[in-house]
């Protein structure tokens, strides 16, 4: 741990004491299969949080899916939704539910891996029932936010409310600024670099590869990106295209374990999440996708069935509960799993003022964490 890390993280509890951090209840459910009536289940979970109608009526709801990695990469050949992608059945139910609750428009977004092609085709390649989705609500749209294209014509500059750890803000597809309600539909997973990937880490995928990708233009976006964001974001080997804000301090460590938790929080701070959903019915442990192998941070991956659903309106409280359900201490510092290699993004989110990561300050509805806990690798 560097001196800078130590100062940053040791200051977190103090800051937490100085100002009251936002908190919100989190609804949890035991749910063992994908053959349930999710329309009813989600409806009840939203009711426990105060109701969906007041959140979305006459609003444009943008749903950030988790479609990480090429659809061609399957974990042990299984369907993507049971290992590392958002499950299509959840998306269908959520679409119908949002429509019934009065949402004006529902937009599905993701920066699809290695392409700026149509998101609907990427979803078809993932085995998703796109035609059913388009008829599940009055106005449903799909947009690959890796660049422009489709109905999006420009980028919007969105600044991190806390000033940013690495980036002061981001140039994002305009769909994100033209959003009334932002929903992150994530999967309950470990992450090779960030320890966990839940609703907040999912938002990293909002960053367009046209600007933050390895093959982004130096000055202007490359609207035909074909790569990930390893050079700009993970390793910090280069800056994003110059139309975007540059890093705050290029002298900070060029280390993904330092950078990625911070950049993820910078993104959430720039494009706040209004509804956080985490699917843990079936998932994978040890990493965020099938490309992680035995040499990864958790020394292996497996397919598991925790049988869990988590829903909240504050991403920090939701992810904190999710982390606890995985068997980890949400307040663990660097060196303790799942943050044995990286900084704890939950504490960084606290530091950014986005919410509390203190379980004592979070109301959990629908079940007790100790009854529902499913132990992920290296949990206590």
């Amino acid at each position, binding site marked *: 741990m560097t001196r800078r890390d130590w100062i940053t993280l040791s200051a977190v509890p103090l800051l937490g004491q100085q100002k009251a951090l936002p908190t919100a209840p989190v609804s949890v459910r035991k749910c063992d299969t994908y053959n349930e009536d999710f329309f009813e289940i989600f409806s009840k979970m939203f009711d426990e949080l105060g109701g969906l109608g007041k959140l979305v009526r006459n609003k444009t709801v943008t749903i950030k899916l988790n479609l990480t990695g090429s659809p061609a990469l399957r974990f042990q050949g299984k369907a993507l939704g049971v290992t590392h992608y958002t499950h299509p059945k959840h998306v269908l139910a959520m679409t119908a539910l949002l429509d019934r609750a009065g949402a004006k428009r529902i937009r599905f977004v993701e920066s699809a891996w*290695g392409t700026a*092609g149509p998101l609907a085709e990427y979803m078809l*390649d993932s085995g998703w029932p796109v*035609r059913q989705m388009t008829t599940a609500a009055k106005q449903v749209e799909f947009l690959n936010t890796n660049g422009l294209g489709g109905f999006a014509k420009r980028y919007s500059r969105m600044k991190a409310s806390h000033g940013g750890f690495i980036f002061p803000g981001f140039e994002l597809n305009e769909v994100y600024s033209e959003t009334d309600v932002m929903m992150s539909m994530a999967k309950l997973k470990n992450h090779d670099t960030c320890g966990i990937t839940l609703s907040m880490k999912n938002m990293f995928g909002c960053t367009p590869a046209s600007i933050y990708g390895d093959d982004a233009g130096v000055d202007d976006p490359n609207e035909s990106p074909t790569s990930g964001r*390893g050079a700009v974001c993970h390793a910090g080997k280069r800056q994003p295209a110059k139309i975007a804000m540059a890093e705050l301090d290029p002298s900070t460590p060029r280390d993904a374990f330092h950078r990625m938790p911070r950049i993820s929080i910078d993104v959430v701070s720039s494009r706040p999440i209004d509804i956080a959903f985490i699917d843990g019915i079936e998932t994978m442990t040890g990493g965020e996708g099938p*490309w*992680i192998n035995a040499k990864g941070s958790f020394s292996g991956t497996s397919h598991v069935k925790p049988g869990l659903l988590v829903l909240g309106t504050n991403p920090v409280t939701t992810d904190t509960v999710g982390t606890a359900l995985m068997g980890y201490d949400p307040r663990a510092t660097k060196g303790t799993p799942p943050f044995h290699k990286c900084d704890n993004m939950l504490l960084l989110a606290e530091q950014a003022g986005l919410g509390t990561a203190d379980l004592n300050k979070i109301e959990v509805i629908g079940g007790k964490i100790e009854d529902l806990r499913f132990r992920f690798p290296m949990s206590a």
Partner: protein
Amino acid sequence: MRARLLAFFYLATILLAATKPEDLIPMRWPGSDPEALSTLDGSPLNCLLVPEAQLNKAFTEAAHRKQLTVLAVFAHGDGIVARVRKSLEVGVDGGVLEGNFAEAETKAARQVLDAASKLYVDLGVRGRIPLGEDAPAIIGTFQGVWAGINPHDEKEEAHAAPSGAPWIDTNAGFLRFVRSATTRPFWLSAVPPPKSVVNLARYLQMIADPAMVGGRWVVTLDEGFFNRLLLKETKAIKDFKRINQLVGFFEQNRKLQMLPPYGQLAVVADVLNGALLSGSVLDMITVKHTPVRPVPFKSVEPKSFNQAKMAVNVDPLALDEAKQKVLKDFTRAGGTVLTAPPGWRMPVPREDQIVTDPEEVKKLDQIWKEVNAMTGRRNLGVRLFNVSSMLSNMLGPPDGSRVVVYLVNYSDFPVDTIVVHLLGKFSKATVYWPERAPKTLASYDNEDGSGVDIDILESAAILIAEK
């Protein structure tokens, strides 16, 4: 029920009329016990490839009583003519030379078999597959790749970058070229990989891989499976029934293979620039599910490009002036030709080579990127979605009244929700599976023409759409 009855009668017809080379459905049979032949009762497999050392008269007679054709298999070694003559004494119907034989040896063996009016099958080196008019009645090679998804390399470091699709090992690419160069029946005699567990799914993949493009795999069970089958162990019998089911499925639909390749992308390639290698441009395009029509050098003439909109010319220096003019005329008529960079040339494949070398792959990658850029998201006949674990082959008459799409699943899991976008309007679509009764699919309009959804695919399927 009607479909099953039809299937039964069709298979019965095949069994009774299994004298023509194109009707022979091969299986390697490393045994000599006549009693064991009851294992094949009801099977579409009607041609046994028996190692010469295991042949005996009682066996061949018993096989003939069951309408089975028996071929002696000769591995490379001394005295091939004498060995062939000896096999004729026990009443075999022909001989198979499997391995790297010298040309003089194959010629001599063939003369002996021809003189006895027996069948000669050449399963030699891939790079020397006889494609000319004087080719044997059945051609093939022993140098196939064992089809399936190339497993993830556990030695690789964990990546933060989730990159592309896993590679599917396939024989489909080079077999597409073979089909475009000859109408001879083609057999592939790859054997199960040694020291590895071969599950049923891998056998099914190995059957379907060449069958999708009109070839036949010489069904070869690993020693343990074969022995368990002869001992009539329940699981072995059950698995063998599945093998028979899939073989029978492709045989029932074999007449579809008379249709030419369909699609708007032509690839000009030949033996000299790697068309017989696995991992060639044809395989690369196959993985992308772009329907392709290979054009061997001898077929570079205007009619070969009638249905094409795009063409890839892998090795422009290999074409003479007249053939280069054909491609020029194609571009003048509005077609697009992607030509390899100046001075670029695939090395002539080595005799023992069956897969492109890493250096060649690097070179091909340049062309591949260009092909990708050229084809983009264009529908050149069909676009398939959620098929990363599959390969496909599209056939159809030139008038476009009907299209046939073969789909083969190379994963060990069924795949659901496959979406097919056909170029042009099709009013009727039916999917045929080995495991299920045929199903009429509802087609819907989309930007390309018509779309259909296939609910599930286990081992293979054939989609037939009609205007």
